[in-house]
């Protein structure tokens, strides 16, 4: 039984400085594997819709007729499911979290280029 048993920890941690960060002025540490937000290389996308089918949060919308790929950043749970199912490997998950949304749309849309459409029709 001790009265000041935490003193050992206090003395050990006394000279260490704070364990916390001055976020956001001091950026938080991100690892190579950290799951941030989904990025798309729209030029390679064939709008097959597999990413939409396998998205557990229904965050992705694919419109084949207008060659548009959209993602709702608020719905996305950064699970990496779409990246794994993409047959063209045009999706990837970076290690940066999405910036706080202050204004503007939460849904980000990407329009396919005519070149990708032309290549697709040739196939």
């Amino acid at each position: 039984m001790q009265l000041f048993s935490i003193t050992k920890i206090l003395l050990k941690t006394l000279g260490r400085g704070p364990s916390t960060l001055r976020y956001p002025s001091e950026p938080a540490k991100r690892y190579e594997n950290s799951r941030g937000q989904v990025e798309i290389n729209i030029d390679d996308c064939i709008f097959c819709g597999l990413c939409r089918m396998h998205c557990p949060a229904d965050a992705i919308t694919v419109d084949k007729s207008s060659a548009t790929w959209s993602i709702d950043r608020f719905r996305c749970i950064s699970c990496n499911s779409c990246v794994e199912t993409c047959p063209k490997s045009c999706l990837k998950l970076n290690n940066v979290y999405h910036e706080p949304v202050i204004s503007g749309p939460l849904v980000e849309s990407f329009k396919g280029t005519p070149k990708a459409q032309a290549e697709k029709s040739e196939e």
Partner: protein
Amino acid sequence: MSSRRIVVPFGPQHPVLPEPIHLDLVLEDEHVVEAIPSIGYVHRGLERLVEKRDYKDFVYIAERICGICSFIHSVAYCQGIENIMNLEVPRRADYLRTIWSEYSRLHSHLLWLGLFADAMGFENLFMNSWRLREKVLDAMEETTGGRVIQGVCKVGGVRKDISNSKLSEMVKDLDILSSEMEDLCNVFFDDDTVRHRTKGVGFLSKDDAYKLGAVGPTARGCGISYDVRKTGYAAYNDLDIAPVVETGGDCYSRCNVRAKELLQSVDIIRQAVANIPDGDVDVKVKGNPNGEYFSRVEQPRGECIHYIKANGKKNIQRDRVRTPTSANIPALVKMLAGCEMADVPVIVLTIDPCIGCAER
């Protein structure tokens, strides 16, 4: 002089409660005569989603049943599907599941010890517990990509591998961390403040714990030597594990069980890293499951059950989950009867309630 009975509502929002549990406390002066629990504030209908989602995609939803034991929920679900489909998971995947499960246990217990210290008003101990927890979370983020929701378990294995050199580094970091944990645990074992608030408080006898179906540290704190890891799922049958058992039956014993399990988890990770085989980490899964399986795992809070029934379609028929908190609520009601009003937060916290888990 006869005393008057009054009913005090406790929760679902309360400064010392991390979870939205609601208790109607029937008081006689300052003594609790009876506690009537009611849950249903955060129900999300996750079990029902299994009928609408592909069985492979449901892993993500199963993982979100609980924010703390998320990885172990996905292990329970995946091993259920794998057993229905007779899939042989690579041994390396089993070891990785074991390592990440134990990291989950470390982070859950450190979080709980901090919350427990906070409920007692011991702020310094709370901050030191959470400081150590951050290091565990960093290790998880580095290896899996997620701090709390790991998202690495899948039907047929795991999504990511950890290189052997990285595993050795992790063990070296754990050696430093475990010495700090020992100092922290000694405070929980020896400190006067902790002892005065927990010794003899919230007593539950071994018979009552058995009859009321208590699981996890709540049961082990009453002297019941019951740990689902001993059944040998994942890679636990290759490792040397002995359940941590205390016989006191009070809050102090349950706290001690969790503190000792921290050191046990570090030991299990060391053993797993020493014995991990090389090879693949997943197998290809074809077809749909057809059959049923009763999958049991040991979460930080206790035994968790996923009963899975599939009918050969891509959407399985039923995934009934029984979480450790559901099993521990009858024991909690028994503990609360006869205690002091001021001890209620401490007693409620000793079962480590997770209402998000219990309501799914």
